[in-house]
């Protein structure tokens, strides 16, 4: 069997519990680091580091280090920093674009790592398949005893790295936010931007190594980027985003693990799939600019425009009738629906075959007409537009003007009483 399937160790809940807890903790570490990577547009650097730590780990293991041990961490961090140094060196010395440079560096380093592992004598604790997709199978069995309890070594390493990363994040959060938001200003303000960035890269390496046993070198990019990208769609403040990302990562790791158990397949792959589903859900359901929210916003605007147009239409009909002119264009189907709604709402009254405005409806209608004519007046004064071109833009803008803006336009048009067509601008209600 190529990759470990979760059923390997049967149904002992404690064992599954340890494996799942390990997955959850490394997922949270990666999501925390990934939040900063994503907002700093360094997602692909995270991917590159994920691949490139392999030779560092492999060499450290060959040199006698133990997977999950300190020595391996050091090797991985060194490899990560080497990756970034190489990518930046290729750009500085050879004008190589960052993505092309990353493509050269991480594939090369990963290839070196695979060759070292394949060529290494058997029994060096690295399984080439595990490199690609991780393997939770043996994690619960490699334990150390703490206070009479057998705790998996990988879980300890993961928890320890999470604690270190979380402490570092809390300690440097303000600087991280400043650097992510505006590196130039941060540098000018005396923030050690280079050190902050190097710290983030080292943190990425630590999170990657901690999750190496769980998800391998390739899938770690899913843990780093997907929860953070989903959280970015849901939050606008960085620390909120980080917390949401970690929550999504933990939930995704647990559900993914259980699903892998149920479907008898690789846990890391399934975790990546569940994180992907979480991202899709966030993209669709995000409250401000999710797919649903935007579609709903469009519909709501269309409905508001229809209601306002209908009210203004009735108002204009009354105005034309008073001046003895013929009626305005017939309302559309949507506007007729809007009229019925406005009747229920109490803004319009049906009087035989004609619509009339209730006092409230009149107030609303006058606001719309006022917005329309004010905008025509503003354009007439501040833009070089022929008189017969003023109506269409105003027909659009009238639905977007608030009271404060109307006052400002009134000032900027010099308190005109009439629009450029000579029609009266109704006063503010």
């Amino acid at each position, binding site marked *: 069997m190529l990759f470990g399937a979760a059923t390997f160790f049967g149904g002992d809940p404690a064992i599954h519990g340890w494996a799942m807890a390990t997955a959850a903790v490394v997922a949270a570490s990666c999501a925390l680091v990934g939040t900063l990577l994503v907002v700093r547009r360094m997602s692909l650097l995270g991917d590159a580091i994920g691949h490139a730590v392999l030779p560092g780990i492999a060499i450290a293991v060959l040199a006698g280090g133990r997977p999950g041990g300190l020595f391996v961490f050091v090797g991985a961090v060194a490899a990560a920093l080497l990756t970034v140094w190489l990518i930046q060196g290729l750009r500085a010395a050879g004008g190589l674009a960052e993505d092309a440079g990353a493509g050269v560096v991480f594939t090369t380093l990963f290839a070196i790592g695979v060759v070292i592992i394949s060529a290494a004598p058997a029994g060096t604790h690295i399984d080439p398949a595990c490199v690609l997709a991780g393997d939770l199978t043996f994690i619960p069995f490699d334990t150390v005893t703490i206070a009479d309890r057998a705790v998996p070594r990988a879980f300890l390493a993961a928890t320890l790295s999470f604690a270190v990363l979380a402490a570092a994040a809390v300690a440097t959060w303000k600087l991280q936010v400043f650097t992510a938001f505006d590196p130039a200003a941060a540098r000018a303000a005396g923030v050690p931007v280079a050190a902050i960035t190097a710290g983030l890269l080292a943190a990425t390496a630590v999170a990657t190594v901690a999750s190496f046993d769980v998800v391998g070198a390739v899938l770690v990019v899913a843990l780093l980027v997907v929860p953070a990208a989903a959280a970015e769609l849901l939050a606008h403040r960085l620390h909120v985003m980080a917390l949401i990302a970690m929550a999504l990562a933990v939930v995704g790791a647990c559900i993914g693990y259980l699903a892998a158990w149920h479907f008898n397949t690789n846990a890391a792959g399934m975790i990546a799939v569940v994180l992907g589903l979480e991202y899709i859900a966030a993209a669709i359901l995000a409250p401000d600019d999710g797919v649903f929210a935007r579609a709903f916003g469009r519909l709501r605007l269309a409905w508001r425009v229809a209601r306002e147009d209908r009210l203004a239409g009735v108002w204009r009909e009354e105005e034309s009738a008073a001046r003895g002119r013929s009626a305005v264009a017939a309302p559309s189907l949507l506007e007729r629906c809007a009229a019925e709604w406005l009747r229920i709402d109490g803004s319009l009254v049906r009087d035989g075959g004609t619509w009339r405005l209730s006092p409230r409806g009149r107030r609303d209608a006058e606001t719309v007409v006022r917005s329309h004519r004010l905008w025509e007046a503003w354009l007439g004064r501040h*833009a*070089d*537009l022929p008189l017969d071109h003023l109506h269409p*833009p105003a027909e659009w803008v009238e*639905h*977007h003007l608030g*009271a404060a*803006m109307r006052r400002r336009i009134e000032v*900027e048009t010099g308190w005109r009483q009439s629009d450029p067509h000579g029609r009266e601008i109704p006063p503010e209600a």
Partner: protein
Amino acid sequence: MSRAAADPGQDGPRAGGPPLVDFHDVTVAYGGRPVIWNVDLEIDAACLFGIIGPNGAGKSTLLKAALGLVPMVGGSVHFFGKPLREVRPRVGYVPQRETVDWDFPVNVMDVVLMGTYGRLGWFRRPGARERQLARDSLDRVGLADLAGRQIGRLSGGQQQRVFLARALAQQADVYLLDEPMAGVDMRSQEQIFRVLAELKAEGRLVIVVHHDLRTAAEWFDRVALVDMRLVASGPTAAVLTPENLQRTYAGHIDVLEELGRAVATRGRTP
């Protein structure tokens, strides 16, 4: 250059016909947020036409909208009374210099030949005729001796002239240039201006997005002042009045900006 003579007057610039370029109520938005509002502008005679305005006024956006490079949310642009797709070969374009990677592995000749691709169509390679045309174009901008040089090893002014030569190779009747004088040395500026004046003398319309007020007054026959909307347009002397400049450079765009935000979020301004 004898194209105008070769097919005389076919829809060409002539009195009484449709305007050479007609911006009709053009509104352009990025991400739902309008950056150019209701620009309405007709240019009906061959001339040097400047589009002038402050940074971020939407001048380049207006040009790109005319070329179909950014979608309009309202309005339309016609050339010679027809939509762009029917008259593409007659419209030449010089983009901003920074929009391309000058480290690209092509030489000056390759770039100028790109001006002939539109007429060549799919699959056909440029032949002797196109090469001659490209050499003539390079000659006009004074770069004939640099034809074989990689484009990254040119000065900024030379790069801009390569772009102009590429547009000349398009053999168009209307030229749209996006900030051709930005970051360009005096000698190149003069050379570019001389070529533009020649184009005008041949009966072609040259529209230039330009940010420098001092040179605008002496270079252009007609100008449009733009700051998120059209402030004024017409003969240069009549348009570049202190009052119009005041309205362009210290204008009321904060109203338009706030309104743009409201439109983008489908809500209302305060």
